[in-house]
């Protein structure tokens, strides 16, 4: 499919490196009450990977303990720690600067084997909310999104069609997607396609 630049590119981005790739798409999104699409704002995102000794101090410095249970997240005070792998976490704080968080965690884990990377600009967030949210996501994702199999508080890396995403369930009808920014228009337009049949 030939992509139309006039539709997918913001008309006058303030800074093309940090502007949301979804601005123009969100502006023309159809209002569907049963499956709303929202382009989420900027957030500080850090990826923390570390050995056992560094996990506790990193969580204390971040303010949210890093979850040790597979595919779960912890949240406190507007901060989120998502389990992505047995030694890998995504730390996300909406509307925050990454540098102070980065500094605090780095200071608390000095000398302990770990890797901390600021990936704030790497991905963008999309909210899919409404009673048909799971139905829409299942058009491109094969996971069982019933509450029994994918409860509130679960997060996981998975796929949406051909794009890798991080899928999070914040409430029974509220999902968040975190997707690499160059894949975001692809995911957004396939979400739009999936909810075409919904009123």
């Amino acid at each position: 499919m030939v992509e139309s630049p006039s539709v997918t590119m913001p008309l006058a981005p303030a800074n093309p490196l940090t502007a949301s790739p979804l601005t123009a798409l969100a502006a023309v999104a159809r209002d569907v009450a049963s499956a709303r699409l929202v382009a989420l704002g900027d957030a500080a995102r850090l990826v923390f990977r570390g050995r056992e000794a560094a996990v506790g101090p990193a969580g204390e410095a971040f303010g949210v303990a890093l979850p040790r249970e597979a595919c779960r997240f912890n949240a406190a005070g507007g901060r989120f720690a998502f389990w992505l792998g047995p030694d890998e976490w995504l730390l996300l704080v909406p509307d925050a600067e990454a540098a102070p968080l980065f500094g605090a965690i780095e200071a608390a884990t000095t000398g302990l084997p770990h890797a901390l990377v600021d990936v704030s600009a790497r991905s963008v967030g999309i909210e899919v909310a409404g009673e048909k949210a799971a139905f829409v996501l299942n058009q491109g994702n094969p996971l069982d999104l019933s509450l029994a199999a994918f409860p509130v508080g679960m997060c996981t890396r998975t796929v949406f069609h051909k794009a890798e995403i991080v899928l999070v369930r914040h409430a029974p009808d509220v999902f968040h997607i975190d997707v690499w920014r160059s894949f975001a228009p692809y995911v957004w337009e396939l979400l739009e396609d999936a909810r075409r049949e919904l009123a």
Partner: protein
Amino acid sequence: MLIITCPWCGARPEVEFRYGGEAHIARPADPSALTDQEWADFLYNRTNPKGLHAERWRHIHGCGRYFNALRDTVSDFFVTTYKAGEPRPDVEGSGS
């Protein structure tokens, strides 16, 4: 679609995984001491069994971890999966 049980994440759809070849092949400690035939065996020659096969898989669109699986190459049935570094489970038969 196959359902593969990741040792960390549980039952997941096949599209989240990548195949990683035969499991339990250790790199020789001193490659320069090997004959050409032994080195070729390590690099290229695999058991290719009809039946249970221990193989590596990676949950690349999930937790990202490599793990091992026992799969029946006739029925494509995953008999069991286990974490990398653990010995091959002593499992009989194929299940199908």
